């Protein structure tokens, strides 16, 4: 993959007309009985189109809360979040659902596929909530499955697929409505190291085609495949680096031993 041919991602704060995510001074409090948990204490992040960002941090660092806000599953207590220039912090629940449906693709650690439902039908799920025809939804779903290399497994049930294959179905599902960003929450957390690299290979290839990816992980091995790495600690961003010499997952796989069992 010719990563060097990609336009360099801009650093936060610099002017960029192609900004996809702009989070400014995000605070988030939770009321837990009498105590108030301050999960985010002023996080500001700007992510341009075509970036591949990992968010790292220990548990309790606020990275999950931040991801939930980026994914429009949660709203910031204070601060502003612009997704493609739209201030989503002020939207109603129904409008947020529409944003999640069309602009955001989710990939979870636990895959979250519906059992006893074929790969194709799982991928079709987001199209059911979008206003597109059934035929169009199916066509896109087949394309998305082909894109993650499962074009020949459309009729398989999750129980008939390996973990890596299940996660690829989940990625296809996240892509089917052609979102602006792909949010992956520990997508390799349940996978062995070789399969993890295979998933990262898919992410790198999707990113090469222009997809913006934000990935939460606590494994540095995984984070190194991204172009940029953001570190959370105590609800704040501690580090925001661009990865130098990032490896190509497709090259790394070649050096990994094949699994014997």
């Amino acid at each position, binding site marked *: 993959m010719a990563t060097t041919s990609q336009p360099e991602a801009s650093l936060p704060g610099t002017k960029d007309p192609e900004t996809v995510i702009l989070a400014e001074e995000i605070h988030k409090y939770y009321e837990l009985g009498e105590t108030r948990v301050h999960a985010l204490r002023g996080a500001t992040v700007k992510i341009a189109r075509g970036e591949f960002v990992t968010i790292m941090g220990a548990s309790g660092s606020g990275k999950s809360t931040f991801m939930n806000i980026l994914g429009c599953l*949660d709203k910031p207590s204070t601060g502003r979040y612009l997704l493609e220039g739209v201030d989503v912090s002020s939207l109603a629940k129904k409008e947020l659902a*529409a944003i999640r449906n069309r602009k955001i693709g989710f990939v979870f650690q636990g895959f979250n596929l519906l059992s*006893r439902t074929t790969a194709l039908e799982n991928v079709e799920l987001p199209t059911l909530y979008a206003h597109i025809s059934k035929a169009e939804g199916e066509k896109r779903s087949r394309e998305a499955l082909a894109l993650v290399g499962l074009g020949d497994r459309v009729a398989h049930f999750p129980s008939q697929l390996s973990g890596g294959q299940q996660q690829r179905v989940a990625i296809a599902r996240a892509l089917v409505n052609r979102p602006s960003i792909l949010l992956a929450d520990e997508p390799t957390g349940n996978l062995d190291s070789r399969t993890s690299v295979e998933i990262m290979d898919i992410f790198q290839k999707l990113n090469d085609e222009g997809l913006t990816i934000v990935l939460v992980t606590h494994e540095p091995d995984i984070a190194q495949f991204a172009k940029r790495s953001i570190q959370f600690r105590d609800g704040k961003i501690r580090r925001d680096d661009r990865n130098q010499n990032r490896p190509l997952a497709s090259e790394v796989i070649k050096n990994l031993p094949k699994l014997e069992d």
Partner: protein
Amino acid sequence: MDLFAIIRIAMRALARNKMRSVLTMLGIIIGVGAVIAMLGVGQGARQTMQEQIQAMGSNLLFVGAGTVTRSGMHMGWGSTKSLIYDDMLAILRECPAAHAVAPGSSSSGQVVFGNDNWATRLNGTEPQYFDIRSWPFLEGSAFTQNDVEMSANVAVIGETVRKNLFGATDPVGQTIRINNLPFRVTGVLVPKGTSAAMGDDQDDIILVPLTTLQKKITGQPWLRWIMVSAVSRQSSYAAQQQITSLLRDRHRIRAGDDADFFVRNLADMADVADEAGRVMTLLLASIASVSLIVGGIGIMNIMLVSVTERTREIGLRMAIGATEGNVQQQFLIEAVVLSLMGGITGIIFGLGASYVITQTLGWPVLISPLVIAIAVVFSMAVGVFFGFYPARKAAQMDPIEALRYE
């Protein structure tokens, strides 16, 4: 998301737990089946009662001679001598709501034919009596007005009398002896069976011309009763009032005094019987609907379990763009599909049960399409009512919490 897609999803979700779905449906099946069968039995009974009252005669009014109190003792109805033939003619002449009238007097008699004898009621009347009571003949015909004028010894017998005296012999043209007087049988009446309203055997009767009874048997020139048919069922109440005021006038009864006659309206009795049937139907149906409610609670229970089990699925659907409305709709439709499928199966079971009741117990069962339509709508309503809370619970989940649920 179109309705068919949601129904398909609901069906698949239910098929995932076939046993559970069937058991849940069973509550509704039993409930709807019981309601259908009970309504069928109730309406059948009501219909039968109506038919029996119709069988007593259409729009019928019964004017009876009243009671006399002699030395403080009530002598029973028909004991006065004040109801006379001219009263009947006056009713026909002066009451516009009265359509036809027939006079009558009653006695009892010992009837003999060959070696058989039978004690029965003996009524004297005129031929129009059979029209007024809409009582057709099984064999032969009524005696004629000419017979009445001649005080002829002719008789019409009821089915019970025929059975007891004649057996297999054709009675028409035969001569029977009533209180030792010979009578020629002109006809046999169609059996009416036991009267639902009165509880007596209407076929245990012999009818002879009024004049014959008065002159040759009782020796009493007055009437015991007058049968009146009103112009229509609606006008039978008007007829009742007209007859009452006419006869009070003719018998010179002062306002406030008890009349020496009474007027009974069979439409009244029909209404009473109808009301009784309605109450019975309602009672049966409400008992049956209790099981429908229990079935509904079963649906609610299972839907709550299902919502909890599928918390992650709900979270996922919300994350990928399902609105609260979408989720609520999905679970609501699942509950409705469950209850509707149960309802339709229940209707089939109810129809089957009704058939069995008719076959084994011989009860008439009447199931109207309306009842079936109501059962369908009602079972759907049960689904909506008992599915609403679980669906609401699903829709109000927080997607973040739901996705984290183990």
